[in-house]
């Protein structure tokens, strides 16, 4: 299936806010859950983009981040891919453990997972697919209502 929107972005964290805004506006007309699009999807996409730019592409301005967005009748899907070597998303520690609560970092992957219905990494770990579902059959653990 062809994506509804593809972006190749410069590796510039200043571009994240406008990019997220642009993608969300594009999804708005078709999305039946404006509230979770506005909060959950927006924050999760911001996390995915900043991880791609900061860790995947190591802030290298010559690298790019690719975003593919697909809007379906019951979901919005965004795939964010960087040019890095990836990582193992399974070993990210739980930032809500008392030991980690006072750390300034480590909440990005956790938030994505909490906020969305599905967060899937490729094997290499340099590409993450974010899924926000709405309409009937929904994941019970869907973040904002947790």
């Amino acid at each position: 299936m062809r994506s509804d929107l593809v972006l190749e972005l410069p590796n510039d964290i200043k571009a994240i806010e406008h990019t997220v805004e642009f993608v969300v506006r594009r999804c708005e007309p078709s999305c039946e859950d404006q509230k979770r699009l506005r909060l959950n999807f927006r924050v999760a996409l911001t996390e995915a983009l900043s991880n791609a730019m900061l860790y995947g592409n190591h802030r290298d301005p010559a690298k790019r981040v690719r975003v593919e967005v697909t809007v379906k009748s019951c979901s919005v899907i965004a795939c964010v891919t960087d040019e890095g070597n990836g990582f193992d998303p399974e070993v990210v520690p739980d930032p809500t453990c008392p030991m980690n609560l006072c750390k300034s970092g480590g909440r990005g992957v956790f938030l994505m997972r909490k906020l969305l219905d599905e967060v899937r990494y490729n094997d290499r770990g340099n590409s993450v697919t974010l899924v926000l579902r709405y309409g009937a059959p929904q994941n019970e653990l869907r973040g904002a209502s947790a």
Partner: protein
Amino acid sequence: MVFQVQKSDDITIVDVDGQLIVGNRQELKQKVLEELERGERKFLIDFANTGYIDSSGLGVLVSLSKKIREQEGELRLSGLNEDLRTLFELTKLDTLFIITDTREEALKGL
């Protein structure tokens, strides 16, 4: 996004207009740390005009709160709408901060 700094007696109030995210969090950090160095000790960050906050925005709040406490100061947060409160609850950061509904309440307590 804009960070506006005001004083009310000995309290430094920062308004976050727009988003507090990876692209601008350093700006907030710097503003607050400058005031801390100048000797200010009571801080209120008001989110009444904030759209959303990402994990690095939350991270900056955590690190500011630590730095302020090290100087025996105090940081409060106010004006979080339902969306923003959700982010604090999911990350359990609502247990780390003193959060009040309105700016007035926060000012009274500080």
